[in-house]
């Protein structure tokens, strides 16, 4: 209660007194909306700013008891619905409690005039973050090239040779390893020789279809000359193309010719 006494002398003591009484009601959010809603906070400062704005609190005179309890209640709810909660939220809980308790202590008598309000550091952070949030919104409103603004990029065929960069195959392999390593999806992107040849056949078949629009299924196979492995790979490629919706397969009637078509048609 000494917190109240400390700050009641300031200008908005009444508002402050009232808002304490009203705070808990504000906490109610329809349960199904809660998850989306809580998930939208960018971090503890964002949550704090939201509470401060929602409760009409003067950022320069934050009622620590009320704010701390509201904050902790939100964090508890986030834990309950098992949102992936950054450790930063819990750190902030601890910090709020610490500030609150420091404010409950009587101020040391022998201190200099410019004794620091225990909230000062927090307030500074909140103001800076709020400024940056505003800046982000302002930036986002500026028309961006590629999003709101289209710039000319017409085609120019380079007729004269211009020494394009040299690349060797190891560099492609390095780049590929790099992608896989970073994606940490090694298992799912494991490339086997057989799969690569399926992929190659997928590309070849797609190119043929792009040129001719329509291709007869059997024309893709040459059983007399192709080894069995190649026929299987070709067949797998067709199945994969169909599964990935890159082509369409058509047959008018049973036993009639099967056609492969471009997916876009």
């Amino acid at each position: 209660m000494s917190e109240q006494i400390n700050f009641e002398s300031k200008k908005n003591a009444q508002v402050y007194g009232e808002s304490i009484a009203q705070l808990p009601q504000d906490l109610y959010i329809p349960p199904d909306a809660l998850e989306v809603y809580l998930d939208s906070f960018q971090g503890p400062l964002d949550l704090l700013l939201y509470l401060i704005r929602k409760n009409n609190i003067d950022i320069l005179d934050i009622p620590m008891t009320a704010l701390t309890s509201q904050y902790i209640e939100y964090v508890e709810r986030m834990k309950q619905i098992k949102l992936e909660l950054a450790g930063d939220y819990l750190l902030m809980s601890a910090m709020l409690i610490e500030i609150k308790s420091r404010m409950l202590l009587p101020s040391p008598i022998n201190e200099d005039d410019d004794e620091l309000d225990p909230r000062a550091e927090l307030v500074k952070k909140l103001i800076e973050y709020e400024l940056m949030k505003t800046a982000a919104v302002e930036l986002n409103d500026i028309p961006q090239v590629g999003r709101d603004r289209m710039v000319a990029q017409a085609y120019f065929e380079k007729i004269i040779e211009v020494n394009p960069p040299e690349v060797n195959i190891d560099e492609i392999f390095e780049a590929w390893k790099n992608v896989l390593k970073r994606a940490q999806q090694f298992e799912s992107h494991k490339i086997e020789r057989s799969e690569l040849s399926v992929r190659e056949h997928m590309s070849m078949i797609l190119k043929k279809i792009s040129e001719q629009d329509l291709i007869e299924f059997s024309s893709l196979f040459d059983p007399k000359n192709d080894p069995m492995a190649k026929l299987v790979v070709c067949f797998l490629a067709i199945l994969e193309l169909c599964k990935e919706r890159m082509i369409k397969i058509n047959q008018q009637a049973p036993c009639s010719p099967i056609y492969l078509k471009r997916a876009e048609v």
Partner: protein
Amino acid sequence: MEQQSKKLKDIIEVALLTAGKPLSIEDLQKLFMEKIERSTIRMLLDEIKIDWQDKSMDLVQVATGYRFEAKVKFSENLTRLNPDRLVKYSRVVMEVLAIIAYRQPVTRGDIEKIRGVSLNPNAIRQLVEREWIEIIGYKEVPGRPALYGTTKFFLDDFSLTSLSQLPDINTIGLESELISANQEKDPSTINDLNE
């Protein structure tokens, strides 16, 4: 009427100048809320072609649609602008090439998914201009994204007879082995992968 047709022409023209790739008649129809007949689009394209006859570019039709191209007589000047611009491909370009080589056919969205970030269209453009990749079809999903694959020139330039000759990651082994292999090698390889 005159006014209206000028507006339609301007919209088609600006779309072609900013698209960075050829646009089909269907693409151009999408520009308008109201339905514009294919024949109307074709007629407007003809008019635009004539409008540009004495100007700096040509409107030409290529396999996948229409695009503006710099008039051939300006190539010498244009080449002068960037004689040795492409000293080295960026890491992004190399990764895109690797993904297309190993995972083709892929859409731009696939590439973004694998890399986890959105992709500057310039990367694809550089590879298309180099004629190492090309559009080989379209995926039948909303937006009809283009499917990219490698070209014959890609195989030629790397002296491969088929894609199966690309280095095989499995000859090196699984992830753990890859990483430990890298750690055993001199430290510079690790930096290579991290930079």
